């Protein structure tokens, strides 16, 4: 062997080093395996397994308690059966012996039979071959037949034995069944208990056999765990929701359920995160819900990194600073910088509804996004920020083309400078006096701009004298009553005290201030203008949202004098708007310089008069600040919006937002939007910008709740698209969307309850039956032809109401059609055309209906054409002669069956319908009439008959004149007139209305 003694290194030392480094290397390798398999989600799964064991154990104990009641009885029965069985054990063993012998015999016989069968088949072939080709050799025909005979004999022998076997088997079965039946009974009784026990046996290692225990450990070992591990990543592949990886879209793979293990299991509703149940299983997650987990996944609503399997890698986003601090401590949470779509904080989850329900804000439970989208419409965000997915329907501010008839220049200048100075809760945002305009230089520029804007708006228009003329004034006390009663408060408040003004934290309160707060109106408009406006708003502004209340001149005068008496003294007394002429020159030159050389700008400016300059600055400023986004202004009819497009604002990467120079705002998209809404100029802090380069989004002074709602809506405007088949609006007609937007635009929900939202006016009126009707089931209820004619020319339906449906002449038939389509859609009403309801007045049902009608005394409340009800005015109800025109026949039966269900709080009682028991009593025929008796308690047939009877009522359909005449004569004073039957639940009525109606 080769031997080399030549050494310059101590080989033993090297050996030691080698040994040490190998051990370290082994340790590192083990570490690799441990690190690779020690996933965070496995800890959660182990913990959840313990919880499952506990839940199962509790269930088991509970079930053990339940079965313990009768278990003993079953067990005793089993014991008795067992004794009987034991007594017959000799018999049983004898039978078993016989069976064994017979089976042996059968085996032998079967062998013989099979062997013979094979021979027969072979012979059969030979015979058939001979038949076909013939004569080549000896015929096997005889041999074949004798073999066939023998086969039959063997078969019969075998069958004999089989019969004997069956007999003995059934005897054995009979003996065994003594015990088995009882055992089955016991098993059936304890089935649930046994199931839970088995489940527990698979979960709880301590209950397993040694072999199963070993198996349970081995299945989760590294490498082997590819087969069937217990602890594994759970994932849902959501084919219809795509994740955009640039140039390709891949289905989302949601692994959230790897840790959120109890999300679909109601047993864990009290468990802590991440094991807890989803709070709304009726709407989400379960296969019965409209949003099953397998179709929608988790991240399609919540966002985040769907493939993450740890707390940090799944990009959770804290909802509150407290959450953030706790997460940092408990989970070492940090922002995943490289994931551009982090999870939505829980307060903004509703933003995700919009990606599938993109045509509507009317989502059951989606209060925040509904408020947000409505606010976006009302605040006029789209006037400056184009949004393809939620386009604006109309300008949100008043038309200013005839401003000279309504306002004075002095008032307008002061208003533009600070609208809140005049009206503390106006929707008009403040463009000026904002934080980035505080320097003296900018303030001076702004003063010039305000003067210019005012000048421009009034340019070339007569400013009429603004004196309050007595001939337009009436009785302010009566005016106040009218203001409160006819429905003004469906859209307006007249509230001096900011403390009492509606705080907009929900949609209901938003409908209260759909129109302006009318405080201080006496400082704003003249009596003449206000009177004309009340009489016919469209005469002044054809596209106004204000409807025509069809007031009598005297009523309009009364309301005018009530409203006009309130003046804002402080505003009136504040000095007129002033500006510095030298600054006007400077600003004119600055603007001219933008598109001209300075020399030219200077010479051009020097040729302009002061008025020219003001006009010039006015036009530039209106364009600069985008006033035309909300107002119609002469010369700006085709102007393009000035703001950033927000169609996909919600999915803009956070790096594309300018957070300004300060670092005190969290770098998230939602924090940016929140702060922008709260203080629109906040990102100018510390910047040295030129006056015309300052941020210019005006301040709307939104409440925190409004900010949250609008942020939700803006986050909803994003590029996260889903496949068409997930989109809810595939089932919805376009008209529905338009109708729904129109309902919001004209604030129908200020007066009416639609889709469980709105109807706040009733708060000012008292019991719901004296307020505007709720419009539940309106789509199924109203005949669309009649509804259209009613919208265009409202008549009195409920004679006992003082509040009245105004005329919206500004809504054309096409839009009314959309509104009707909206009503029909929310009631799943798909019929566009209906035949005339046919009925036979000679039928038995009709006669029964007539009888019910007679018993029901409908005429005590209802009008029959011009025939007055027998009861008093407060209980008056719709004209039944109108029914056939106004209502759908199917709905009427439904209504008659249970009016309270359709319109909670209605005074309409369900008509009394006798049941078959009553109708079969002696003398029923004389009490109820033969027609009713013949129907024998068929409720629907009786109600159909009643409906048909109503259809047959004839008379005048429009009875406005006689009702008006009645109230003109008797007044609306129900308290003194109505007496006892009117009850004391009513207090908000006008007390001594003695004029109109």
């Amino acid at each position, binding site marked *: 062997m080769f031997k080399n003694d*030549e*050494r*310059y*290194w101590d*080989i033993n030392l*090297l050996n030691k*080093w*080698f040994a040490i*480094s*190998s051990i*370290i*290397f082994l340790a*590192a*390798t083990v*570490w*690799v395996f441990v*690190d690779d398999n020690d996933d965070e989600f496995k800890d959660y799964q182990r913990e959840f397994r313990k919880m499952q064991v506990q839940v199962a154990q509790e269930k088991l104990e509970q079930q053990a308690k339940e079965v313990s009641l009768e278990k003993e009885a079953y067990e005793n029965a089993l014991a008795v059966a067992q004794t009987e069985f034991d007594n017959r054990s000799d018999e049983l063993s004898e039978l078993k012996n016989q069976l064994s012998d017979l089976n042996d015999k059968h085996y032998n016989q079967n062998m013989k039979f099979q062997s013979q069968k094979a021979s027969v088949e072979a012979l059969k072939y030979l015979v058939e071959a001979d038949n076909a080709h013939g004569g080549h050799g000896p015929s096997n025909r005889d041999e074949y037949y004798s073999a066939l005979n023998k086969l039959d004999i063997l078969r019969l022998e075998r069958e004999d034995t089989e019969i004997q076997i069956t007999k003995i088997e059934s005897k054995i079965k009979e003996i065994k069944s003594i015990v088995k039946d009882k055992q089955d009974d016991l098993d059936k009784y304890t089935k649930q208990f046994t199931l839970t026990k088995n489940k527990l046996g698979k979960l709880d290692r301590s209950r397993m056999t040694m072999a199963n225990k070993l198996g349970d450990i081995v299945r989760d070992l590294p490498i082997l765990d590819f087969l069937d591990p217990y602890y594994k990543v759970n994932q849902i592949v959501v084919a219809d929701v795509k994740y955009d*990886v*640039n140039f390709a879209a891949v289905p989302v793979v949601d692994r959230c359920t790897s840790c959120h293990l109890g999300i679909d299991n109601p047993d864990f509703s009290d468990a802590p995160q991440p094991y807890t149940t989803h709070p709304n299983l009726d709407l989400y997650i379960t296969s019965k819900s409209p949003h099953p987990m397998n179709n929608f996944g988790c991240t399609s609503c919540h966002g985040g990194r769907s493939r993450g399997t740890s707390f940090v890698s799944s990009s959770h986003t804290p909802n509150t600073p407290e959450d953030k601090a706790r997460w940092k401590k408990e989970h070492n949470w940090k922002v995943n910088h*490289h*994931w*551009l779509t982090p999870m939505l904080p829980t307060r903004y989850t509703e933003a995700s509804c919009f990606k599938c329900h993109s045509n509507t804000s009317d989502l059951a439970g989606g209060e925040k996004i509904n408020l947000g989208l409505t606010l976006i419409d009302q605040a006029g965000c789209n006037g400056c920020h184009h949004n393809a997915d939620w386009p604006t329907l109309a300008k949100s501010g008043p038309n200013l083309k005839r401003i000279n008839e309504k306002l004075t220049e002095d008032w307008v200048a002061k208003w533009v400078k600070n609208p809140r100075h005049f009206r503390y809760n106006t929707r008009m945002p403040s463009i000026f006096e904002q934080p980035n305009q505080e320097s003296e230089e900018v303030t001076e520029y702004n003063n010039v701009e305000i003067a210019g804007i005012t000048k421009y708006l009034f340019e070339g228009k007569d400013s009429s004298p603004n004196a309050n003329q007595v001939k337009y004034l009436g009785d302010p006390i009566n005016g106040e009553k009218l203001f409160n009663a006819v429905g003004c408060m469906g859209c307006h408040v007249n509230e001096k005290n900011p403390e009492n003004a509606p705080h907009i934290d929900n949609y209901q309160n938003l409908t209260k201030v759909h129109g302006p707060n009318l405080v201080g109106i006496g400082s704003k408009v003249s009596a003449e203008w206000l009177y004309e406006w009340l009489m016919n708003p469209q005469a002044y502004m054809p596209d106004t949202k204000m409807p025509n209340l069809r007031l009598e001149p005297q009523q309009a005068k009364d309301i005018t004098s009530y409203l006009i008496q309130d003046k804002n003294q402080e505003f009136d007394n504040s000095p007129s708007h002033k500006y510095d002429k030298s600054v006007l020159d400077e600003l004119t030159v600055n603007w001219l310089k933008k598109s001209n050389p300075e020399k030219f700008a200077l010479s051009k400016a020097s040729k302009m008069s002061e008025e020219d300059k003001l006009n010039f600055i006015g036009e530039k400023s209106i364009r600069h600040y985008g006033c035309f986004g909300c107002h119609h202004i002469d010369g700006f009819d085709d102007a393009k919006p000035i703001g950033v497009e927000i169609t996909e604002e919600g999915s803009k*990467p956070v*790096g*594309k937002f300018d957070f300004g*120079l300060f670092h005190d705002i969290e770098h998230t998209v939602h924090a940016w939007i929140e702060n922008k809404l709260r203080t629109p100029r906040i990102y100018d802090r510390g910047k040295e910008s030129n006056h015309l380069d300052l941020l210019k989004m005006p301040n709307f002074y939104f409440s925190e709740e409004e900010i949250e709602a609008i942020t939700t809506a803006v986050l909803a405007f994003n590029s996260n698209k889903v496949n068409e088949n997930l989109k809810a609006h595939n089932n919805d007609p376009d008209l529905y969307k338009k109708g729904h937007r129109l309902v919001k635009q004209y604030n129908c929900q200020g007066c009416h309850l639609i889709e469980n939202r709105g109807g706040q006016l009733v708060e000012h009126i008292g019991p719901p039956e004296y307020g505007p009707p709720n419009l539940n089931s309106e789509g199924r209820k109203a005949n669309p032809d009649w509804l259209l004619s009613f919208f265009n020319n409202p008549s009195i339906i409920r004679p006992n109401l003082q509040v009245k449906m105004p005329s919206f002449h500004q809504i054309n038939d096409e839009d009314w059609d959309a509104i009707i389509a909206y009503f029909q859609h929310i009631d799943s009403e798909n019929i566009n055309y209906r035949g005339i309801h046919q009925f036979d007045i000679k039928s038995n049902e009709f006669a029964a209906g007539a009888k019910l009608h007679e018993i029901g005394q409908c005429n005590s409340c209802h009008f029959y054409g011009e025939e007055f009800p027998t009861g008093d005015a407060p209980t008056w109800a719709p004209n039944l002669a109108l029914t056939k025109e106004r209502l759908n026949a199917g709905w009427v039966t439904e209504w008659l069956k249970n009016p309270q269900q359709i319109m909670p709080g209605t005074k309409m009682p369900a008509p009394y319908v006798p049941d078959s028991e009553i109708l079969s009593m002696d003398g029923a025929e004389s009490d109820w009439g033969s027609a009713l008796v013949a129907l024998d308690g068929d409720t629907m047939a009786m109600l159909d008959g009643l409906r048909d009877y109503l259809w047959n009522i004839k008379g005048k359909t429009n009875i406005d004149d006689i009702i008006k005449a009645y109230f003109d004569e008797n007044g609306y004073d129900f308290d003194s007139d109505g007496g006892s039957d009117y009850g004391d639940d009513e207090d908000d009525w006008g007390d001594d209305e003695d004029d109109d109606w």
Partner: protein
Amino acid sequence: MLETFKHTVDYLSSPTISFSILTVITPILFPPTDWFDKINRKLGFHLLWTKTGLIAAMAAITFFFVVGYMDQNFNVILTKADNFPIVLMVYSIYFFTWVAMHKAYINDERLEKGLKPLEYNDPDDKVLVWPDLVYIEFIALILFTVFLVVWSILVPAPLEEPANPAATPNPSKAPWYFLGLQEMLVYYDPWIAGIVLPIFCVVGLMAIPYMDINKKGDGYYSFKERRVGIFIFMYGWIVLWLFLIVLGTFFRGPNWNFYGPFEYWDTHKVVALNSVNLSEYFWVKLLGKGLPENILLREFLGFLTVGGYLFILPFILAKTILKDMYEAYGPTRFVSLMIFGLVMLSLPLKMYLRWVVNLKYFISIPEYFFNI
């Protein structure tokens, strides 16, 4: 106190100052002539290669990183998984330089006393590859594998989001080993900084054995016997390559702007970039005219400068101050050496011209994408 330290470091690390300091210090650290050697001894720089020097320098580097780790701004950059190799690099540059210089100094002393270098005394003047060297290398291999494994466990791979042309990272950085090249791009056109200079680096390194005629210092550590060569190499390697990597890693932030290590990476930072071409200096600033239409006429000064620098300067040098060298090396070696040397020197020269006189390009022909 700490703040003052941080501000000082921030100030000193700006490329102009730190590069200048390194340029001045390198000849003192690796003195190519006796004069520099005297300064070295006077300032005590030679102590850096003693064992105390090792401990002190390691402590100083560690102190810097500890302070950096505790600093809110530097922490963000220092703890990036991408930047970990640079921290290791800073330690290892010094350590391996120290090993070589430490041994070289000992040998230099022995040689001065007329003794043989240390390596000469190894047993029978040979080391066995098998089994000793191979065995040692194998153990080193295992330990290094352990190190890589542990590193990969403790520091997750710095993966980023799917590439998105609409959302590019700012700053966009090359892998750490190319950051020196990326830094050169600030001063030279891509075709020079990205192609010509790297090729010259590689070819130049390959050419060294063929151009080296110094027979001393072979097979043992020594500084004095080849101090000019070591100085040039060290300047190229540490200042022009490794320092630019450190600069690119730690000091280049959003928009490739310079940020001191303790400075916040503010995306809004704006630095005036208004450098001027040589042709503009000549025609516009000096003569007060417009630029000539003719490209060759316009850029004639640039062509003269570059041509003179690369092709005439070597001849002048050969006739004057490097006459001895020319004679010793012969024309081929001398010219090659000059070309490689001058190209290497062109980088610091251009950097200084940029900083001092705002020079953009010597030759600027954007019409044909040709800029030098």
